[in-house]
């Protein structure tokens, strides 16, 4: 696989309508989405998006429908042309590529997973998985071997001769994922990949993605409208609203320091104990307690303390003492928000 790649989005604007270029100046100067719509008949898709996604991490972009998240992800492989701005992948501007450079970039650098799977209904599962390889001109035998390996990885061996419509939604999305992984691209774009799946299957798929990522270390851009999913998967999370970034940070900072009321409303319904980690709520005070590894979530820490009959824990990074955490602090962190 090619080296993991970072993605930089800079000053990205997208306006939909007959003559977007004419309005980008006004939008930059602060015209609102409502004004642009009612006075000029154009729709503001994205306003001044700046995100830097480090290589080899999962970047989640979260927002409700209409927030522009699906528009944003389509700028990374340029399925949508921006009105102005830059998208840099390892320093190279995707928006400056010629048609054939772009095609090459899509074949070798990005792979995409779609909400409604985007599988080819007339091809069998294995022929869907090898589609990306076939487009690159890789021979059928090699492609098939690679395809079967990835089908096995997503737990679908034995299904290669079936057609997509014969499989359940969860299985179809595994095919979609296998297709994306088979192309061996360093960037994986997942557009609400799990939104159409049942909750239990969704959790399974999230686990599978995390397992795969631990080994593959791709740069993954994951779009979702579900904060639980965002918190579980994201190394970094960006929250979009009406085409603008309202908060960017990791799961801890979004849970502990939501930027505004909008995000507060999301955060309120989340099971904080499952996502907040001990090092985020501990204090660097002296004292003793039972050792707990940093990275443990509060739910697990509270359970461990209760089980051992202790009321304080020492947060340890290996043998190093990071801080101390009491049951009282845990309870107050869980009930805040």
């Amino acid at each position, binding site marked *: 696989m090619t080296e993991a790649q970072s993605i930089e989005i800079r000053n990205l604007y997208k306006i939909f309508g007959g003559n977007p270029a004419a309005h980008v100046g006004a939008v930059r100067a602060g015209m609102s989405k409502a004004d642009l719509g009612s006075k000029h008949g154009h729709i503001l898709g994205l306003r001044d998006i700046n995100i830097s996604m480090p290589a080899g991490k999962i970047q989640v972009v979260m927002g409700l429908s209409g927030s522009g998240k699906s528009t944003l992800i389509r700028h990374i492989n340029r399925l949508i042309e921006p009105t102005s701005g830059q998208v840099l992948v390892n320093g190279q501007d995707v928006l400056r590529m010629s048609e054939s450079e772009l095609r090459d970039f899509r074949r070798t650098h990005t792979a995409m997973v779609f909400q409604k799977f985007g599988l080819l209904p007339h091809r069998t599962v294995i022929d869907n998985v090898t589609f990306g390889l076939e487009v690159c001109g890789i021979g059928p035998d090699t492609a098939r071997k690679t395809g079967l390996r990835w089908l096995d990885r997503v737990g679908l061996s034995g299904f290669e001769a079936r057609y997509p419509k014969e499989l359940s939604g969860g299985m179809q999305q595994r095919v979609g994922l296998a*297709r994306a992984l088979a192309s061996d691209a360093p960037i994986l774009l997942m557009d609400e990949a799990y939104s159409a799946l049942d909750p239990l299957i969704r959790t399974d798929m999230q686990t599978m993605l995390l397992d795969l990522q631990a080994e593959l270390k791709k740069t993954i851009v994951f779009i979702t409208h579900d904060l639980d999913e965002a918190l579980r998967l994201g190394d970094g999370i960006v929250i979009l609203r009406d085409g603008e970034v309202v908060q960017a940070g990791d799961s801890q900072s979004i849970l502990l320091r939501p930027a505004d009321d909008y995000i507060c409303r999301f955060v309120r319904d989340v099971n904080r104990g499952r996502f907040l980690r001990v090092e985020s709520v501990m204090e660097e005070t002296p004292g003793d307690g039972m050792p707990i590894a940093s990275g443990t979530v509060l739910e697990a820490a509270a359970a461990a303390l209760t089980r051992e009959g202790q009321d304080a824990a020492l947060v340890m990074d290996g043998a190093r003492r990071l801080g101390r955490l009491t049951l009282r602090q845990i309870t107050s962190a869980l009930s805040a928000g």
Partner: protein
Amino acid sequence: MDWLISFPQLDPDLLLSVKRAIDGSLKALTRTWGQGIEDFFHPLQVILILFERAMTGVPWPLVILALGAVAWVSTRSWRIVAVAVALLCAVGLLGLWEDAMLTISLVLTSTIFAILIGLPLGIVMNRYPRLGRVMSTVLDVMQTMPPFVYLIPVVMLLGIGRVPGFIAVVIYALPPIIRLTDLGIRLVDKEVLEAAEAYGCSPNQKLWKVQLPLALPTIMAGINQTIMMALGMVVIASMIGVQGLGLNVLQAIANQYFTQGIFNGFAIVAIAIIFDRISQAYGRRLQKHREAGHD
């Protein structure tokens, strides 16, 4: 008040001279270029005769066997095979075997040509929307034009016979295959297309690997209509010297041979049913993968 009663037409002398000028120049054109045009279309003549000879020259059991085989391969349904063979036998028993073979061979050749011309035109129509709108208007005109009108220009340029009849049939049968190719490509799921783009398909790869295969059932519906229109036009083209069942019908009209008309009419319907059943069942079979299980 005369002009209120009868519509004020252009000066009759003017109309006459316009007609004369156009007809005259057309005649002059055919006189000068007639031989060239005929030479140009000569290969068609060769192909048509080849097909005719093949259909009429082959022993009848072989033809029935071949038809049965085609029906089986494309439909996998014994019922359709049985119906097709029975109908063809009935046509033979009525003494219309030879004429039926002539008609079938012309329908087959014109359908093949219509597909060869119409499919690329449908793709072009889809790929260039502006040109597509112009083509769509032309197709509208073509589809409202009475079929007899198609005979006029070909007769003027090529006289009567197989080739002009064939050309009229092909032109008449073209619109459905063009339209339904365009429609089929347009109906391809947007997300599937987006996936093809996202994996770096070139326009050609997109066409061959995604659009055409997914449009195929719709295209088959177009081919089915094209066959039916070709069959209808083959009968009409008997007016300009195309042989086969149509000619018998024409004779029956002219001489009021009622039974001859009925028999030949039946034979035409039989052929229509055979072609229709086979091509429709084949089209349905192409969609098999869409029906199964989950959505």
